[in-house]
């Protein structure tokens, strides 16, 4: 039986808020797990117009080059893009876990430890797609959805 609209809305909004509540803390203080948020291979990843190859490259940049970074997420919204994202459609009945989700996050970021440093407004768009290995994998960072594409921009 196909999921109801309620089930889709619940699953998608929870996926979006869970993502925002785990991804930004990882960027801030658990950089060693950053790569685990990304699908492989991902589509486009952009930071301020700089293209980054994949999740490993993002993690490498944050681990090796970024100063301490404080994020405050202030707004999150999401919409379902495709209820049956192609790579995971099994041919069986539709499931909420097969959808791809557009997530748009707004907030501010502070680069550096001092609280006196400026708060820079950012807007970031993600497309989350189902984690294809989720049915079998029981890894430490089990995720239902992974980043297919990401675009970060400082806007203030």
């Amino acid at each position: 039986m196909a999921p109801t609209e309620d089930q889709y809305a619940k699953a998608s909004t929870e996926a979006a808020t869970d993502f925002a509540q785990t991804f930004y803390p990882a960027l801030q203080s658990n950089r060693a797990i950053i790569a685990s948020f990304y699908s492989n291979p991902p589509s486009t990843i952009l930071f301020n117009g700089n293209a980054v190859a994949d999740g490993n490259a993002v993690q490498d940049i944050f681990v090796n080059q970024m100063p301490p970074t404080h994020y405050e997420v202030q707004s999150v919204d999401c919409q379902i893009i495709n209820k049956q994202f192609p790579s995971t459609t099994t041919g069986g009945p539709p499931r909420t876990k097969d959808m791809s989700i557009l997530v748009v996050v707004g907030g501010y970021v502070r680069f550096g430890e001092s609280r006196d440093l400026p708060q820079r407004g950012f807007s970031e768009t993600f497309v989350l797609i189902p984690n294809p290995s989720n049915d079998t994998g029981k890894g430490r960072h089990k995720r239902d959805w992974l980043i297919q594409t990401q675009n970060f921009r400082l806007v203030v």
Partner: protein
Amino acid sequence: MKRSRASRGASRARSGTSDRGGIRKRGAPTKVDRDGDLAMGAGADAIRGQKPRGGQGRSALSGSRTQTLDRTMDVIQKALSGSSGAQANIRQGGRGPGLEQVIVSGWKQSKAASNRDGGVESLVTFLEKKLTAPDSKAGTRARISKSRVEGDALIASIRPELLERMLQLNGFSFAGAPLIIEKYDQSSAALLDQPMSTQNGVAPSPADTKAKMTAILGRRYYQQAKLLDLSKLATDPDLVSMGIFGTTSTESKFFPALMKVWEMNFSNNAARREAVESVSLADNQLPNIALVTTLSQSFPDLKNLDLSNNNFKDAQAIIAWRWKFRKLQFLDLTGNPFCADPTFKDTMLKWYPELRTLNNTQVRTEEEIAAQKKTPIPVQAAQFRDESQIAENFIRAFFTGYDNNRAELVNGFYDNNSTFSLNVNTSAPRALQTEPAPWDPYIKKSRNLLKISHLPARMSRTYTGAEKIRELWTTLPQTRHPDVAAQPEQWLIECYPIPGLPDISGQSSTGVGGFLIMVHGKFQESNAGRVETRSFDRTFVLGPGGGIGGIRVINDVLCLRAFGGNEAWQLEPQAAAAQPAGAPVTIPAATAGGPPGYGLPAPGKTDTQVQQEQLVMQLSAKTMMTFHYSELALSGNSWNMDAALKNFAELKSQGTLPADAFLPGATA
């Protein structure tokens, strides 16, 4: 869609002229109209009937202090250090019978200031909670009997027994900002409303006081230098003759009243802010800034401030300006005991991020200022990977349509499965010194998932299908976006293809490709007779469909926030490329295997080389050609991007480009 470089040049030119700084009138001072009726703004005409005496105060300004003035100084000092005596309050909305009033400021810098009510309600709640004695029983919570907002200040009336406790809250942190709490001394307007005794005992009318103050301001204002010289006030013969320094209460009220008169001479805030860049409060023997604190309300954008030869002992003496004057570049505190404090320089550097000159010594270079604003992730030009101008045409049509005919726009691009939602970020960082517009027209539709947690509300704030979207859009305020072509610097638009979209024809089981478009910009909106400017971020997913140009909007997410300007996406000036502490992150080019640091400044690399590399990256992003072929195309066309693109289009249509000219995975 490319950002304009013109604005960057302009801003550099501006900062280039302003950093000479300095308040002192170096060389010959600019003499102003001796009648004193210089134009302080349109409102100055209104008081032109009064012909003030010209020039008489001049000698007092430039003359050295003499022993005979000491007594007057003592009087001022006394006035400044103590609070004024209680006086009958004849103003409307004043304190109630038997109540004390305090003035609370500093909260406009708190996070709560972006609340819909400006943070007033949470501030009052916060104060009441703090006022409540820890040992008091439940239900006997302290109350603020009355409150009102005046500018940056909250005037709160409380029962007298709470006064002491309230004043102890001075310096407490409220939502990230330190509060300043002082006893209210019936400032500004009260002085103008009330007769003031003079030396000869004749009470002048408020209008007379106002006219005299206007004349004094006129004499002390140097229009061309944009300098307001408020030094040595105690020796100003006009002020002395007005009896300002006759009693403590008039002294305490004088400065706020003077600021009020200054503000009244301007018809609008913009003119008022532009009129003055520099203020001198030198030689006033102030022990702290309690009485002159309103200066920061009248001149929030001040660049140069001379506080020399006062009597500030420590940072606490000027703490009320900790979060004020965010654009201050020049500060002179010489002749104050505070300067001997070992932390003096570091504290001032910390307080004022734009400060360049402290006590006439350079403390920050332009490069250091620029470096502070740099992000560890360098700001690059927008990535715009369109095909056949599909996304570009959509964007042009969209914002014109959204401003002019939303119903038609919906018909053109939205179908029964299109989804729209909007969310409001009420606490987003914003451009300095802007009042955020109220969010009433949007807040009940906002689907900010951090605030809206109940599933039914989340669902009802999602608008699926052209009909619902049209219906919603007719209820949203009319908007005016800047023209994309005419004002490209106001926009940042990025776009690239994405796979895996739903196929409405149902033919493809592997999904179809389309575009992800992210737009950042601003718009104006007419709201109850006021024109408000807001910033927005809008993300679209476009797929093939039955709309104009064979496309459909699959998703449309609009995020609204307070106006935040467009500086964030302006490319960093090459001049600031000299890297001080903290080199920026070098992001290896993912697309074409360019060497690390390609397109970024590096030792031994010329600016021309960096610019050429950036052009290569841009061309590669647009054409999906490798860096090598992109470089060939550009160098063969004198590094002219348009010519290179034209050349590329010709070669591509002729089919003469080899497969290895393109990036792996790109379809030629």
